[in-house]
């Protein structure tokens, strides 16, 4: 049906295409574009709108849940999150518009900028484990310092990582992740390395690099590898600060699935993230890279079960819950790892990406004592994406 070559007959004289066009009295208004002449319903704007409302809904859930908490500096945590959201989205849209005005070849893409703003807030760490650390060390985990940091991350990410990197033809790293990492690098070292968590002496901070148990109650002292009090740690860091529950498997499951306080703002309610993310993947069927999320979650679960058996944990649940449902992992898996620009385009590549991300995340969190390591893992995998894109498993039709 489709011969390999059309043998074009030669022109009789040098009549050019334009000349013939002018010769015709009917031609002056006709539009000529290459095939196809119809287009599917999906556009970039619509993709971004879907993503915007999915992330916004998870952030609203977080705001509602967190409105019960008052931080040591006297701010309502839910209100803090709402203000952060307004700041990041407003600044992102405004800077996108301004850059579009100044640089004529830059696309003004309001919805994309708004999504970027939401992701900046969604991956920001508000009220990190033991807000007392934040107060003591001057780490921006609370208002009003958090507002300035969110603003800096938004502007840096939009200008440097979204616009300037876009000039190079494609983005190499997730703009929100890269900007957060750059700005918070000093703070990150303080707050994310687990050994720092016990600095005030009120936390029992275990390492994941050893057996984990659920037996110890909140407030008991300790720390270091092998300490079987992970449940106590989860309880003290992730539950409502005023409640004094004892670390039972049931209460920890409830915390990790329903209401985490502190940590990544986007991942406060794991169930909300899962519902919003799944709805997004169903709405924008085939346009969103759900394979990354699926393969990441599956491999993380498998890896944590393997580690649980290897270390001889008291039960298989604690480690699994932590690896899968901690705010950084769950929010990143659905909304940051699936960022189209910085991830592979083939289905096989996406699965490789998801598995690689899971392996790096688990390794960083387990052996480097660096909770929230998924962000670092994401940046590493983003940089590997051009290489993953070269992997070609299925050959074309009939080859």
């Amino acid at each position, binding site marked *: *049906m489709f011969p390999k070559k059309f043998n074009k007959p030669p022109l009789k004289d040098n009549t050019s*295409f334009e000349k013939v066009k002018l010769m015709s009295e009917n031609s002056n208004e006709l539009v*000529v574009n290459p095939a196809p002449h119809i287009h599917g319903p999906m556009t970039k704007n619509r*993709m971004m709108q879907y993503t915007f409302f999915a992330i916004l809904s998870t952030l609203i859930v977080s705001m509602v849940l967190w409105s019960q908490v008052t931080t040591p500096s006297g701010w309502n945590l839910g209100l803090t999150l709402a203000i952060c959201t307004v700041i990041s989205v407003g600044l992102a849209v405004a800077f996108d518009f301004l850059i579009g005005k100044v640089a004529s070849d830059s696309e003004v893409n309001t919805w994309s900028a708004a999504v970027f703003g939401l992701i900046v807030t969604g991956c920001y760490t508000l009220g990190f484990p033991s807000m007392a650390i934040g107060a003591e060390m001057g780490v921006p985990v609370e208002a009003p310092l958090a507002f300035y940091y969110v603003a800096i991350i938004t502007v840096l990410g939009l200008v440097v990582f979204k616009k300037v990197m876009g000039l190079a033809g494609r983005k190499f790293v997730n703009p929100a992740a890269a900007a957060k990492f750059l700005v918070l690098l000093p703070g990150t070292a303080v707050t994310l390395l687990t050994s720092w968590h016990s600095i005030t002496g009120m936390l029992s901070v275990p390492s994941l690099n050893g057996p984990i148990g659920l037996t110890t109650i909140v407030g008991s002292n300790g720390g270091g590898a092998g300490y079987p009090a992970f449940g106590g740690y989860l309880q003290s860091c992730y539950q409502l600060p005023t409640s004094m529950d004892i670390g039972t498997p049931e209460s920890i499951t409830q915390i990790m699935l329903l209401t985490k306080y502190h940590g990544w703002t986007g991942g406060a309610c794991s169930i909300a993230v899962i519902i919003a993310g799944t709805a997004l993947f169903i709405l924008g069927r085939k346009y969103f890279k759900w394979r990354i999320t699926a393969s990441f979650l599956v491999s993380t679960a498998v890896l944590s079960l393997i580690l649980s058996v290897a270390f001889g944990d008291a039960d298989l649940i604690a480690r699994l819950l932590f690896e899968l449902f901690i705010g950084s992992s769950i929010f990143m898996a659905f909304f940051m790892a699936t960022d189209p620009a910085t991830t592979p385009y083939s289905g096989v590549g996406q699965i490789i990406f998801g598995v690689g991300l899971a392996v790096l995340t688990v390794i960083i969190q387990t052996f480097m004592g660096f909770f929230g390591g998924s962000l670092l893992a994401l940046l590493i995998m983003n940089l590997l994406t051009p290489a993953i894109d070269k992997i070609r498993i299925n050959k*074309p039709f009939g080859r």
Partner: protein
Amino acid sequence: MANLVHIPEQKEVARKTPIEIFPDPKIAVVLTNQQSGATNVPLVKVGDVVSIGQKIADVQAKVSAPVHSPISGTVIKIDNVYNSCFEYPTEAIYIENDGKKTKAKPLNTIKESELASTKNEELLKIIREAGIVGMGGAGFPTSVKLAVPADKPIKHLLVNGAEGEPYDTADERVMIERTANLVRGVRVVRKLLGNPKVIVVTKESKVEAVPKLQEAFKNEPDTEVRATHLTYQQGDAGMMQKAILGYEPIAGKRSYEMGTIVQNVATINAIANAVFDGEPLISRVAALNGDIPTPKNLMVKIGTPISEILKANSITDCGSVVVGGMMMGVQLATLDAPVTKRTSSILCLNKAHAKARKPTACIHCGRCVSACPIRLQPVAIYNAVIKGDFKKAEKLWAQDCIMCGTCSYVCPANLPLASNVKMARNSQ
């Protein structure tokens, strides 16, 4: 095949509209080249009087097909006009209609009862002299396609009645209204190919055509009518072999080497007309559709200027006119362009729909990769082409592209993926 993209058919009204005979044009503009293969030269000169069915352009070459006069009259000029087959102007013979309808000597014909005893060479000669080319859009001379070497046995003949292109209904109406003629045509092709198994492939959505075909082909030997769910992309010959027979034809090989010939219903209709009635290919059914109130199926003379068809149907505010299908067709640079043997449809887009979609930056979503029916990576080929790296495009198998246009259709950034891949493909 779960990854094939469904494209809305948009055929509700047109598929129920009977074929209407469009009056002969006052001036027929017959392009001397409507086939792929060797270049024809005119056999007439200005001032000559020609009659209906007279051969007016031909060349002595293996891969070639002549062109015939659709009307009787006088040759008034030979000039270049926009040719929708090649997307640029080529030589055309202008014939002024004298209204006498004088007919030239018909082709040699054979009686239906004599078909079995007729030599293949004789049948192929009739098909060549009738100027029949692939009417699905490719324009490959049918006499060459059906001249299968004796050492390559053909196991299957697929009669392609899928007509996946949205808006196109010409083939569907032919299947409904010329069913008996199709049966005759299939007998000829089957005889030529050494009695292979015949599968008439059509879509289950063609509710009127399916029972008619089943009824007509009921008593034919070794013949099956298969009405299945086919997507637009499965109207391609290679994709159809995968969908119906379950194998992927090896890329770059002629279709007979896989033991299967796929032939479009419009072509089979033309073969029956030529072999039994002595009619050369001077008219065809073309759908008139798009953003117009009354879609039609027109039996139109090849060489009728498109502007005349639009005028007769009082279509005035066209932003653009597409011939040959919304997905693979060509937007005309001028309405002076005539109907060709490959013009399966004439589709008008209103000014809002015709407006060019502005391409934006690629967001790397990979939708084109998952949508490509032949598993290419359109975005990778596109990036190679815009850098001018045609070697890389070849490594990415750009030459295998079937030009279905699905990648551009699904692209959320409106990138002209299909046209760039086509550029790489045609540069090989």
